[in-house]
């Protein structure tokens, strides 16, 4: 049995014996094939995560301490966490509702059709690869010289920035975030929507139910877990997002990722050591809770997607 180094190096090795054997009989060389990948993941995923999370527990000279955790009770930091959670919650809810509506509209369209193709492609780009570029899109739209800003000002005499340029502050993040949350909802919720069986609608009709009754008694209860799971995913997505905010918010560090930036750039924000590590720990804890809830709900939701 010889799926050994060849898998990674492409080199030849002994090829004695037939290929099919019970999986239990694993030779030592085959195991070696896993080593390069395992080493890579340990070095660039496990190690940085541990370093990030654990650095909050140590002082600059390397002694263990819990003092840094006190930073999480600092009013500035609490405010950042509250802002992050509020922003994520708001954009997740709006994104989930609008995205679910878009999925509903696409029900019945052929999966290989042109509309689905364009929507899938556009959703992928906006939900997953936008980042900084979405910030620029919104500067062009509702920036001080943006298309919509100028149009509202010249046509209706409405100055949307009468109370200051909020686009560069926390409220300015809401629209860009919704702009990548809705496409993500389309990507994650469409499979659940598409798994609704036409037969259920037929059965409902045969038994004398109405279309409204179908959604009320069958459609919505079946989709509820998927919707909740997608909502959590959207929350996690907004919560961990950094690029759009970094490119847009120039005034202060209103959300946690921007606080981490500030802490990384200057080592002693708020006069605390290893603040970045403490903040990272806080983020990881919240992400873990959200993703744990996601996996539990999703397991339930999957019952209907077989």
């Amino acid at each position, binding site marked *: 049995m010889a799926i050994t180094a060849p898998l990674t190096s492409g080199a030849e090795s002994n090829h004695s014996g*037939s290929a099919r054997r019970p999986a239990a009989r694993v030779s030592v060389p085959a195991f070696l094939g896993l080593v*390069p990948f395992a080493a*890579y993941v340990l070095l*660039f995923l496990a190690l940085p995560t541990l370093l990030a999370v654990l650095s909050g527990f140590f002082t600059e000279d390397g002694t263990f301490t819990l003092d840094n955790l006190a930073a999480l009770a600092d009013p500035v930091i609490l405010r950042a966490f509250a802002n992050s959670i509020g922003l994520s919650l708001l954009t997740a809810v709006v994104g989930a509702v609008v995205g679910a509506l878009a999925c509903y509209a696409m029900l019945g369209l052929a999966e290989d059709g042109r509309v689905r193709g364009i929507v899938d492609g556009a959703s992928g780009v906006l939900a997953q690869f936008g980042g900084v570029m*979405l910030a620029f899109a919104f500067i062009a739209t509702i920036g001080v010289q943006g298309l919509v800003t100028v149009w509202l000002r010249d046509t209706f005499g409405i100055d949307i920035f009468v109370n200051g340029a909020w686009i560069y502050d926390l409220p300015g993040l809401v629209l860009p975030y919704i702009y990548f949350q809705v496409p993500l909802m389309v990507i994650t919720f469409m499979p659940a929507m598409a798994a609704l069986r036409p037969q259920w609608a037929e059965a409902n009709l045969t038994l004398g139910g109405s279309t409204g009754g179908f959604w009320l008694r069958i459609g919505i209860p079946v989709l509820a877990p998927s919707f909740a799971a997608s909502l959590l*995913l959207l929350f996690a997505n907004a919560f961990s997002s950094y690029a759009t905010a970094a490119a847009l918010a120039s005034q202060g560090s209103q959300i946690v*990722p921007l606080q981490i930036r500030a802490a990384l750039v200057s080592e002693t924000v708020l006069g605390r050591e290893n603040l970045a590590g403490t903040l990272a720990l806080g983020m*990881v804890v919240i992400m873990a809770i959200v993703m744990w809830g996601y996996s539990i709900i999703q*397991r339930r939701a999957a019952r209907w997607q077989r």
Partner: protein
Amino acid sequence: MSARLGPGRTARTVIGVVIGGLFAIPIIAMVEFTLRDGDGHSLAHWAALFDPENARQYAPIWLGLGNSLVLAVVAIGIVLLLLAPTMILITLRFPRLRRAFEFVVLLPISIPAIVLVVGLAPIYLVIGRTFGTGIWSLAFAYGITVLPYAYRAIQGSIDATDVRTLAEAARSLGAGWGAVLTRVLAPNLRPGLLAAALISVAVVLGEFTIASLLGRQNLQTALVVVSKQDTYAAIIVSLLALVFAFVLLVVIRLAGRTQGSAPRTARRAATAPSARAESPSDPSDPSRKGNNT
């Protein structure tokens, strides 16, 4: 039949036009913005961007683009030479490890890039001292951020191919493992490998967080730098990059569809980067989350 579940033609059109229209506004605004010229419109800003005379002014963009392309190539290398062979090895020899493996490769989705970068900073300090500060080393971090997407694309093709039988047939005909991998399995897994490579390009071209906080220059950090002096150029390049990523994803979709013999699952998995969600075999797959870092 499913039309009965969906909305009527009118409702569909109304919802589509309203949501689609709202989502088109920022893109239209970008186009309009780049065409501004005094009180009118012209292609002046587009011409300026590509005018050799302004090469110095826009140098960061071209440098960043070049760096991003290098990073994309190295990241593709990691996906094709490290991830894909490992996945095949898992399929052939360690099927019981599959769940654990999947958990690991999907993990980057739950760990925000901004958290990862806190831990990557000291690691790259060491790497910088040992190997120098060449841009390519950043691709090791990008390989991690690409993992969930690439995994999904490749796994879709593996699930749609009888990898075991193919490998055994080739082996019994005397092929060495190198030949099995490159001449038997790789061609059969091509849609998944292609999709994984293209998604890696899209992810790497859009990455900002890690490069920016590790002080490296890539396309996205260059956009932010240039935008401070010339918003027009930054928006033009953003627009082009978004369109390019869109084309990539559509190509992935089409490439997935041409795999005529493969079951639907593979086709889906290879199309949208997050379409793996449709695979009922893995309900707890959190990999649909975006990566808007």
